[in-house]
């Protein structure tokens, strides 16, 4: 009986240890943010900034082109 109990305990401990190792095997990621779609909000914000930045640079480019034309 004692022997059976001991081996049972060993199996349970082994399973628990396994679970701990398994939990450490998978680093945490922002999966919730992805599953509820909030990540698209971040993408939208970043894209707005990026597009705005490019429009700004483009306008400066056009202005300089005009200046170059006037100077020649």
């Amino acid at each position: 009986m004692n022997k059976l109990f001991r081996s049972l305990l060993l199996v349970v401990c082994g399973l628990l240890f396994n679970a701990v190792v398994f939990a450490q095997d998978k680093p945490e990621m922002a999966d919730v943010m992805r599953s509820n779609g909030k990540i698209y909000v971040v993408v939208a914000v970043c894209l707005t900034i990026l597009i705005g930045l490019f429009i700004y640079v483009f306008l400066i480019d056009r202005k300089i082109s005009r200046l170059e034309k006037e100077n020649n």
Partner: protein
Amino acid sequence: MQKNWWKILSFLILIYTVVGGLLMDVPRLFILNETIRNLYFHVCMWFGMMILFLISFIYSIKYLSGFNLRNDIFAHNFAAVGSFFGILGYATGTIWANYTWVTDQSQSLGSILKEPKLIGAAIALLIYGAYFVLRGSFTDMDKKARVSAVYNIFAFAMLFPSIWIIPRLVGSLHPGAPGSESGNPALNFKDIDSRLRMIFYPAVIGWTLLGVWIATLKIRLQLIKDKSLLHE
């Protein structure tokens, strides 16, 4: 419009970088977790800086071989945008390190300040800072161009020990150091797999092209300003 295709390319690549960089699958890594996506932004700043400094270095050599002031203006502005990218790389690096070096590996500020990668990068940026100080201290245009072109070659040469060699020889928390089991900060990084490469390489090109675009704007403005001096 035909010679502006690379500006559109830069725009499209950076859109792809932001969308793909935030949405596409990345390897699941300890400590780094989701911050591995910073690879598309932080590391690209440094790559962009190196490429812009290389262009600046080439224009400095070109200046010294013909003493055309036009090349000096090119060298100066590429170095300026390169330094700006370097400062952005440093700033983003501090944010990233704050969350991955300090908290997860129980590192104190003291050990962070001893990082050879940070010291090396700071030295490199300060050397380039001295380049602009040197330029500002001359009143004679030809002398300014000549001395700063020679100094620029020295500054580029100093990049080799300060950011490419020494950080790879001594232990550091930064990827690429001997202690971190990876040979190269980004290209041969053991954690960089094909999923990261698919966005990382285009991102480097995209950010660099944006830097080149801004540099050409500065150059064109300077050329208009100095038109009377250039005798063209």
